[in-house]
Structures are given as structure tokens and as C-alpha cells.
């Protein structure tokens, strides 16, 4: 697979895939700092969170669909999983859009960024895309949703909390199939490990270059603090359900400073 000329954009020295198609009502930006992100759960903050999430789910749909189109020779059972994922992400985008409208929001109300697409679609191999999109971005979403459903519930919005919990259940299955397939494919051909490692390294470089930095001010005028750039608490139980190994979960816990929602067995192991 080759990336055709004109299909990329360069942001702060990092080459990313050019954005997928968006309606003209959307203002598409390139970095997190250009996004609007308010602290707390004001009406505006709630709408922006749903709007951002809706676009991220749309991006996840686009990544799964593009993988189906780009890798016709992938094992059929893996393609079935990608097809299912495309359908799941479509539903997620639609329920978030529905909820956004219910609380008074609208499409295009806030800027959107397509960072996950920009990184993932630069990779010319399916194991690399699974490692970056499913095993990293979506696994991160498992952590984020684990925390966010509690935040929404605590803010008195049980409907959104339940919606996020439903999405979380689906995301676990997307991470799990990627974990299974990466294991299987690398067992069959150990050279695939190198592709996975290169993909993860590309992601790390992009994150380091383009990720929000403490001291920056975003488009909503919010100063980005150390706390806001810290990874969310690790959703240990759901990561284990997604078939990360305990060693992998402990590694993520270490990166997150051991902030977690721990299930009993791991709590005992740590004690």
C-alpha cells in the first residue's frame, strides 16, 4: 500500500494523513491546543465533551472502514471484526449526536480534530494500525470512559453516564479482538512485531511533538495544567476483560502513577 501524493499534511514537523471529509459546519483543527476544552461540567463543557467524543467515534469508524478497504487480503475473520467495529462506531457517533442535540448542542458547535485518523492512517500495515488505533487509542478510551461515566453520573446526568457505559462495553470488544489478532499474527510471523514496534514508535513521536503541554492555553482560554495532561486513571478490570495481560496492565498503571480503578485480585497483588 502506498500513500498518494497530497494525501498528507505536516503539523509541527510530523507528517500525518490529511483529514477525512467533514461537513462545512465543522471547524477542523490540527492539535489539542486548538480545541476548546473547559474544566468542570458547565453546559458548555458538557456539550463540548459530547461533540468531541462524537467526532472521535466518527474517526474510529473511518479508521476501521479504511482498514477494510486497504487490506482486502487480511484474514476474513479479522475483516469481519473490522466490519463489526465500523458498525459499532457508527452507532456510537449517532447516539452521541442524539444526546448532544438533547442537551441543546449542534454539529459544528466546537472545533474538531482528527488526530487518531492522522496518525493511524499513515501506517501501511494492518497490525500496526491495530496496535495504534485499537490497542492504544481505544484502550485509552476504556480508561477515559471508565472515569467519565462516573463524572457524568456525579454531575446528575445518568442518561449520558449510561450511554457511555454502553459504548465502553463495545470498546472492550474492539481492543480484545486487536489483542488476539496481534498475538496470532506475530506468532505466525514474528517479523510483524517489528511493524508493531515501528507503529508504536511513530505514535510516541507524534504524541511527543503534538500533544498538549503544560502552560499552553487552549482555544477556550483554559490553561493546560500538568493534571490535565496526565493520563486518566487506569480502568484495570476492563483492560483485563480486553485481554491485556496483567504485566501489560501493570505497565500502564506505572505510567499513570498507579491511579486506577483496581479490581480485587490486582489490589491484593499490589498489597
Amino acid at each position, binding site marked *: 500500500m502506498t500513500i498518494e501524493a497530497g494525501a498528507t499534511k505536516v503539523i509541527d514537523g510530523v507528517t500525518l494523513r490529511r483529514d477525512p471529509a467533514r*461537513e462545512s459546519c465543522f471547524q477542523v483543527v490540527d492539535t489539542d491546543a486548538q480545541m476548546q476544552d473547559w474544566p468542570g461540567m458547565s453546559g458548555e463543557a458538557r456539550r463540548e465533551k459530547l461533540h468531541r467524543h462524537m467526532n472521535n467515534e466518527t474517526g474510529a469508524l473511518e479508521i476501521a472502514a*479504511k482498514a477494510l478497504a486497504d487490506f482486502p487480503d487480511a484474514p476474513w475473520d479479522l475483516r*469481519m471484526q473490522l*466490519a463489526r467495529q*465500523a458498525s459499532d462506531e*457508527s*452507532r456510537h*457517533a*449517532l447516539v452521541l*449526536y442524539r444526546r448532544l442535540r438533547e442537551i441543546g448542542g449542534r454539529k459544528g458547535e466546537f472545533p474538531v480534530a482528527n488526530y487518531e485518523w492522522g496518525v493511524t492512517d499513515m501506517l501501511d500495515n494492518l497490525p500496526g494500525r491495530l496496535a495504534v488505533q485499537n490497542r492504544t487509542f481505544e484502550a485509552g478510551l476504556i480508561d477515559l470512559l471508565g472515569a467519565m461515566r462516573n463524572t457524568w453520573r456525579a454531575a446528575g446526568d445518568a442518561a449520558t453516564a449510561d450511554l457511555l457505559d454502553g459504548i465502553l462495553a463495545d470498546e472492550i470488544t474492539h481492543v480484545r479482538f486487536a489483542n488476539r489478532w496481534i498475538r496470532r499474527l506475530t506468532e505466525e510471523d514474528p517479523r510483524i512485531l517489528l511493524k508493531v514496534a515501528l507503529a508504536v514508535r511513530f505514535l510516541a513521536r507524534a504524541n511527543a511533538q503534538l500533544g498538549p503541554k503544560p502552560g499552553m492555553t487552549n482555544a477556550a482560554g483554559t490553561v493546560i495544567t500538568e493534571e490535565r495532561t496526565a493520563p486518566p486513571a487506569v480502568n484495570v478490570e476492563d483492560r483485563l476483560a480486553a485481554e491485556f495481560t496483567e504485566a501489560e496492565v501493570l505497565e500502564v498503571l506505572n505510567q499513570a502513577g498507579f491511579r486506577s480503578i483496581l479490581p480485587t485480585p490486582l489490589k491484593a497483588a499490589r498489597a
Partner: protein
Amino acid sequence: MTLTIRDKADTLGTFRFVSVHLMETLARWVPTTPELEVKTLFGRHIWDLAQHADALGKRTFELRAALHYSRRPAAAYGRELERLTAVPGTADRITNMYDVLLPDLAGRYDTYLKEADPLLDEPSVRVIGRIVADFPRLASDRAAVIGERAELAAPRRSTNGLGAIAQIVEFRPAADAAAPEAP
């Protein structure tokens, strides 16, 4: 006329090829279609077409062909399929998929059901019956989107040969004309 085992496998393999092709078409359209409602319509239906292909591919194995045996359709049908899936605009994509390709495919499934022995070929009939039962939902999903985005309905198009695919009688090539393809 009784269909031979080879006829059945070839026909189901051709249906599978078309299902995979349409799944890939929708997948290709998703990132390049701007409208959220349409993007997600295509995204949801990718899974339907994948399931159709999967069920057909499992049945071909029972008909002494390969698991997930796929067979390229007759040349004229294949050309028309390529032409209709190459369109760039959203309204044209919706029209071509939901007003032309899927109804045509549904008609070809119905033809198979009429020709098949419902007892001897009951497993294929069941598979195709379940597939055909999905088509009204696909159409109603499309209608719901057009209900929200009326500007995406494309009432025109009488001059670009839309619908020509329905005139093509030959769906699958003659038995010896195509070698079995990998899934």
C-alpha cells in the same frame, strides 16, 4: 430445472463476491463522505454486507467449494458494478447503492430462491432468505437519513445509464469461465 452442486456453489460464490465488493465500497466511501448521517449509514451497513458474505462463504464450503469461495460475476455485470461504485458525490452514492445496486441484488436473490429446490437446497434457501429479509431495513435506514437530509435525495438521473445493471441477465459467468478465487 435442478441446479447442480457446482451451479449452486458458483452462484452463492458470486453473491459472496458482490457482497464483499459492496462492503468494501461502503468502507471506501466512509472517509470521503462528509455528511455524518450518511457516513454512519454506510458504516452500519458495512456489517450487514459482511454478515451476508460470511453466511454465503460458509455455505459454499458445504457445497464442495472452498470456505468463503468467491467468484467474480459476469464481465458486463462486473463493469457496471465498478462504474456504479466509483461515483464521488454523496447523493449519487446513496442513489447508486440503495436505489440501484441493492434492489438489483435483492431481485437476483429472489430469482435464485425461485429456481432452487426448497427442500434439497434448504440450507442455501435459509441463508438467502435471511439475507433478503435485511433489505427492507437497509432501505428504511436510507429513507430515515433522507428524511433528515432531504437535500441528499437525488431525483434526477435518467441519462447516465442508472439502472442498466438490471438489464444484465447474465449474473455469474459460465462454469468454466472463471477459476475459483481466494476469499
